[in-house]
């Protein structure tokens, strides 16, 4: 997949900038959309006609957190083939377990690792779940 459609929901501005720069200027992807807040994203869930290949979700967001967001996405069948991956700074064992149980397709830890991230993304797009964080 040379140019996957990637969405990223994140309320921290710097994190958004890092991700966007990494994906576009670092990896050269062009179909990258970032959403400033979960509420803004929720409004567009039904409106957007494009189906992304992967959605990265921040977990600790207000007012709608990552888990609720995942449910909202999974309730809509048009996103059935979309991979939803958590992007979080909380990567303790029990939290990873919660993510797994909730139905995420994987987790990527913050801070992002420039060296390992491309490989992880490739696994995600190959429909593999990735739970190895750090």
């Amino acid at each position, binding site marked *: 997949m040379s140019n996957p459609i990637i969405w990223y929901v994140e309320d*921290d501005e*710097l*994190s958004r*900038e*890092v991700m966007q*720069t*990494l994906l576009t*200027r*670092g990896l050269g992807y062009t179909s990258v959309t970032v959403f400033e807040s979960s509420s803004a994203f929720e409004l567009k869930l039904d409106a957007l006609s494009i189906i992304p290949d992967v959605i990265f979700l921040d977990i*600790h967001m207000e007012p709608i957190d990552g888990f609720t967001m995942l449910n909202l996405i999974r309730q809509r069948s048009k996103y059935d083939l979309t991979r939803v991956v958590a992007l*979080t*700074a*909380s*990567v*303790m*064992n*029990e*939290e*990873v*377990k919660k993510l797994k149980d909730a139905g995420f397709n994987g987790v990527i*830890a*913050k*801070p*992002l690792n*420039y*060296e*390992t991230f491309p490989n992880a993304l490739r696994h995600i797009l190959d429909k593999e779940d990735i*739970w*190895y*964080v*750090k």
Partner: protein
Amino acid sequence: MNRLFSNVSLGVKLNFLVLLVLVILLVGIVLLLKQNTQNLTEVIGGQRITEEVNIIRSRLAEIEDGLVVNINFLVSSVSFFQAVGRRDQVETKEIITRANASLKLDDITVVDGDDKRLVDTQVDEDQSEENALLRRALAGDESTALLIEKNAGQIEISIAVAAPIVSSNGNVLGAIQIGRHISDRFLEDLTFGRENINLGLIYQDKIQAQTFPDRQSIISSHILSNGIAFDDASVKLAESGQSVILTHLIEGDGGVPHTMAYTPILSAAGSSPAVIMILVELKDIFSFQNVTLLNTIIIFAALTLFALAIIYINIYQTMIQPLNKLKTIAHTMTSGQYDERAPVDTKDEVGQLAKAFNEMANAIQQREISLQAAREQAERADKVKSMFLASVSHELRTPLNAIINLTKFVMIGIYGTVNAEQVDTLNKVERSSKHLLNLINDVLDISKIESGSLELFVEDGLKINDIIRLAVETGKGLLMNKPIDIVLELDPDLPLLRGDEQRMRQIMLNLISNACKFTEEGQIVIKSYRQNQEILVSICDSGPGIDPKYHETIFEVFRQTKVGLRKSEGTGLGLPISRRLTEAHHGRLWVNSTSGEGATFYVSIPVNSRLELTV
């Protein structure tokens, strides 16, 4: 005894003790009763035997006197002494026979003046004693004697009296001797046929005549009746002429007590070659004594049972029942129910126990409540702490994300050309940032471990070789083009493990990273193999090695060796965390090394893990 009864109910124990006391009392009473009745029997027996001796002796004296009267009657008869004077055997015999029809004497002997026998109603084998008596009579003396004679092989003992036969003018015409045999019949007459009294005639250590009806059962000539034999000493004493009354009781067959006496036969003083043994059987007293004893035992046993019943009922109501109730409540308390209380009905020890028990139950219940509260508080605090740790981790990692990656972007030229010096500087920023990130991770880990809140995410089916390979991939990045070969010697047939995959990877990554960091050139050999019930992983490097004196300190928190401090940007927490994580898997982590010759770290993980799966 206490040990013997340790498994028995209190009621049984008490009943047994009471029974024991009562049995001892009964035995005492029976003994006392027996002693007393024996004393009484002795007194009564003593009186009976004394009376009996007097009766027998006076009867004997009567018989003796009767013989004298008889003989005087005979010698005073004119026709008799005339017939003797004529030495007319026929007439003398006729007179004697006629007289004896009423006198019923056993033996009458008449001699003339020349000591020639005119009449002898019973001719004995040995007549010497008879003759001696007759000779004394011929000399003019009337005398009484005990004659011992033999007739048809049998010894025959008689009471005999001899008198001279004197004419009216005083001439001695002859002599007469009359006697009565002391036979069984004679002795029976003496007792008037009464039961319980038996007489025996003893001569020369043998019973010659006796009144015991069952003569066939006598097994020894010493035994008179009921298995009682005479005793020689008393017989000797009686033979010397005096009556002997035994003061003590003699037990016959079947335990029946007897009293006994020996008496000489003739009333005149002097020795008596034969004596009469008197035996009084105290049968009536004995049966009275037995009946009394039996009644006592029956009444006592009945009273004992009654007393036992009363004691048992009392003990059951006042002790056993309340104690059982207490036991039941204690059981319910053991199972976690603290609401029930024991009833306090009395103020005795049992009541006090119940009261004390209730107080204890109150205290325990109170303590349970406060323990529960403390536990809940501790759990809340633990939760708060976990949340705090998670939050700290999150809050520190978010800005680091920007620092590390934005630095990286500048460094790799995303925002425009950078010169070598700038790259170098940015590299330092990146390295420091990553170091800070590692520190955050490790501090969080160690604080979790120290607080005991480390939770393993336990799964089955872990492949240790895959974990090693992934860690090697990551660790390789630290080699920085150093001339090092990483050699894997992994046993492909290892069993699947149970454990926390992420934590196992953390352990492997830490050890492999250390090897990569500290080795400048040569080999890093990583092996996996099975040893007994453990999977072992060894990481052997050709680095500087570790002095044995630091082999334990390197596993302590913030204790790196000098080489370690100089060499790495480590946190000093990697090995302590790895060791704790290994131990959390019930495994071991240790090092084998000498300074200058590389180091080998070993990790062992048990094949059959005791860890519980995380649901």
